[in-house]
């Protein structure tokens, strides 16, 4: 067994033991890191291949609201509601992805189209205030049970979040090691050359888009199930969509654990600044966060994990685009 696999197993055992040693507060932070890490990983499935979406808040919003509405109004269990939400998000991914890829809407045009999509979801949720509660948000009907996917103990939710997060990593790894990755990397470098090399550009792009949309929706569902409250701005606002992009990039979107490191980094930073400054200085955390993001984009666009890998593998050269996606060694 290689060192990497051993380290992975040791890491998993350590993660599985967290609920037995951690206080409620630490467990709360850990759950948030896992769920957001999962969402950022889902985003990076697209982001690392040049499909920079500024609108994942749309998928997050669908995933957060659909099961919640079905549960509150029709008492439909989230076990069915969540797949419905994921399916709708996938449909939305196809509806926005197909014409975008067909008509070569790329770069900041793609970013703006997806941003518009997230605005459509956000404003629809606000507009349907009779059903969704509008900007005030919506509280889940509380019923602690497996059927309702609601639990009084944080440790149960931690276990669920851990499993889902790991599943996200497996999907990422499958995409990374599959034939699709070579194709997508070729596409993100030169689409026309890739197409003339026999790659079905359209199908590969749509595939990652649909997977990314479904997983993001699942992440949104989990957030709602955990917090038992949902609000349009929290899941679909411009700030959320941007935050997803930044955290994934800060962690490093070209590596397996990069987005999770991004989640860890941003959430721990946010929490410690909050504790440090208290509620008298709301905004202090995000002020520092904003500065860091600018510095990240300028000085280390390959992210934290990318930087560490770069340093251990070879001396860090400039920060060109190729460096942004260091190849992960094949098993």
């Amino acid at each position, binding site marked *: 067994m290689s060192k990497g696999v051993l380290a992975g197993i040791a890491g998993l055992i350590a993660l599985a033991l967290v609920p037995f040693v951690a206080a409620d507060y630490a467990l709360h932070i850990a759950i948030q890191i896992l769920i957001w890490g999962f969402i950022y990983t889902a985003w990076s499935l697209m982001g690392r291949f040049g499909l*920079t979406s500024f609108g994942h808040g749309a998928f997050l919003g669908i995933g957060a609201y659909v099961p919640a509405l079905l549960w509150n109004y029709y008492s439909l269990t989230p076990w069915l509601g969540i797949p419905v939400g994921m399916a709708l998000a996938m449909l939305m991914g196809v509806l926005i992805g197909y014409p975008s890829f067909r008509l070569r809407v790329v770069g900041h045009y793609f970013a703006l189209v997806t941003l*518009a*999509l997230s605005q459509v979801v956000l*404003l*629809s949720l606000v507009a349907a205030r009779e059903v969704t509660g509008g900007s005030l948000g919506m509280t889940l009907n509380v019923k602690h049970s497996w059927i309702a996917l609601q639990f009084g103990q944080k440790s149960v939710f931690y276990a669920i979040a851990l499993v889902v997060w790991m599943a996200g990593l497996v999907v990422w790894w499958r995409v990374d090691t599959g034939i699709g990755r070579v194709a997508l990397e070729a596409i993100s470098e030169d689409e026309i050359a890739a197409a003339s090399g026999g790659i079905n550009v359209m199908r590969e792009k749509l595939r990652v888009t649909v997977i990314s949309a479904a997983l993001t929706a699942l992440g949104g569902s989990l957030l709602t199930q955990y917090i038992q409250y949902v609000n349009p701005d929290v899941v679909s606002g411009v700030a959320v969509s941007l935050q997803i992009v930044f955290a994934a990039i800060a962690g490093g979107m070209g590596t397996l654990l990069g987005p999770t490191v991004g989640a860890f980094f941003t959430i721990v930073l946010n929490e410690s600044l909050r504790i440090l400054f208290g509620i008298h200085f709301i*905004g202090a955390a995000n002020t520092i966060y*904003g500065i860091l*993001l600018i510095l990240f984009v300028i000085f280390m*666009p390959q992210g934290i994990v990318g930087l560490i890998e770069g340093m251990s593998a070879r001396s860090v050269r400039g920060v060109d685009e190729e460096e942004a996606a260091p190849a992960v060694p094949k098993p």
Partner: protein
Amino acid sequence: MDIFLLEAVVDGLLLGGVLALLALGLNLIFGVIDVVWICYVELVMCGMYTVYWLYSYFGVPFILACIAAILLVAVLGLAVHRLIIEPVLGFAPINQLLATGGLLFFLQSFTTLLFGTDFRNVGIHLAPIELGEIDVSKARLLAFAIALLGAGGLYLFLKRTYLGTAIRAIAEDREVMGLMGVSPRSIYFITSGIGGGLAGLAACLLVLQYDVHPFIGNSFGPITFMICVLGGLGNMIGGFAAAFIMSQIIAVGGYYFSIEFSYVLAFLLFIVMIFVRPQGIFSR
């Protein structure tokens, strides 16, 4: 015609003036430097706070407060270019979007830190003008007129002056113009200053109509980008026309449905249009 519908149309026309002014500066920067300042409306917010504090708190005359705001935001524009855009000019376009996105976060939270999340109003209430049976907001009419003047002034500057010609030339072809002795670096710098100044001007007009708060950019930002793209990024006349199309959809849609729903329509139209006419509705 229904009197309320007429009022909605007139309202949309006047809102179009403000949106057009917002789109103008963003379009100028995009056309010349090929960069999208996603934090553009946050710069407008800085201008609004400047006017608010100078006028309402320190008692500076409104006109002087406006001039100060325009100058300050112009300087901010210069700083944005020098400190944030220049280091990433050679990077993929998406990195430039992200760098200015970081600034968006910074400006929103820093103003929250300084001023809190209170909605603040300069407290100038201009009496509405009665036109026939409908009331027209004087603040909006003023904004509309100044937006038109600003657009006209910018047009003349770009067409008639040496500097304006150099800016247009850079927008046309940046490689060749370097060889002709025009320095893209200084042109970019000047353009950023003008773009900032236009954001400051928009701030002076918006502050008469809306309360200022740290997150005002969230309500105006996305629609402004959509207008620029709809008109053809960098195409100033297109952007100007697109502003009026969008504002009519928002105002008339708001009359028939709800205001949020009319924004949903506007964004859906944007998505459809970018697929049908990706170079903007006025491309040839």
